[in-house]
């Protein structure tokens, strides 16, 4: 019905957070005159980039799921956009679906992203320790 709304809200929040972190990161690297510090930071993938991956995952899913809902007539291009909004019983059903399916979608996508980031961090650490040992 409108399960994709929950990941959409998360996508907006993550996109804003990534943009703010990117700005902060750029300011920090500009002000850091220490060459060692700047090269150290550049070698690892900054967190705002990793957040960008999550935002891309969420936006991609949201766009394609929104199309699916459009296909099934669950969303319309005019106000109030969700067809369930016209019926009070359907609104209750929609909210339950958002709370169950929608929240689970967000949690699963975020968990998958977290696993990938954790594996990436481990690989980066191994590469760094391997380079130090040589």
């Amino acid at each position, binding site marked *: 019905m409108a399960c994709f709304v929950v990941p959409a809200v998360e996508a907006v929040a993550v996109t804003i957070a990534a943009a703010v972190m990117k700005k902060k990161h750029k300011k920090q690297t500009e002000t850091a005159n220490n060459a060692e510090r700047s090269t150290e930071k550049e070698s690892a993938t900054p967190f705002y980039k990793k957040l960008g991956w999550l935002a891309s995952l969420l936006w991609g899913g949201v766009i394609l799921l929104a199309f699916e809902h459009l296909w099934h007539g669950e969303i319309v291009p005019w106000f109030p956009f969700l067809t369930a909004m016209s019926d009070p019983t359907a609104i209750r059903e929609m909210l339950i679906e958002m709370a169950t399916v929608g929240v689970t979608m967000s949690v699963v*996508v975020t968990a998958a992203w977290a696993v990938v980031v954790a594996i990436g961090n481990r690989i980066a650490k191994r590469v760094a320790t391997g380079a130090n040992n040589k």
Partner: protein
Amino acid sequence: MTLVIALICAVISTLIWYFNPDRKKLKLSVLCFEFWGASLMWLVDAVFEFAELKEEFFTQSADAVVNDALLGLCVAVLGVVVYLIVLLISDPNGVVKQLFSKKDNE
């Protein structure tokens, strides 16, 4: 069926991303993220549907399967179109810029 088609697209786009040395320039990660994100979301949807329908989940009518397959194909096309829009906006080879630049028009 939509989930299966989205998963196939995700796997193909990941393979293209992995073997293409120009992956960064061509923004191939956009395509991967798009299909993997949608696949994960549809997987959750399928699990909830299975919990509700049980055995009926696997014995859907041919019409429903065909409709789902058609939707999956449309989703795949939409995914590629979204990727193309992102690619043309980022314009890594400057083709769009060149197309609309004054020099080219003259």
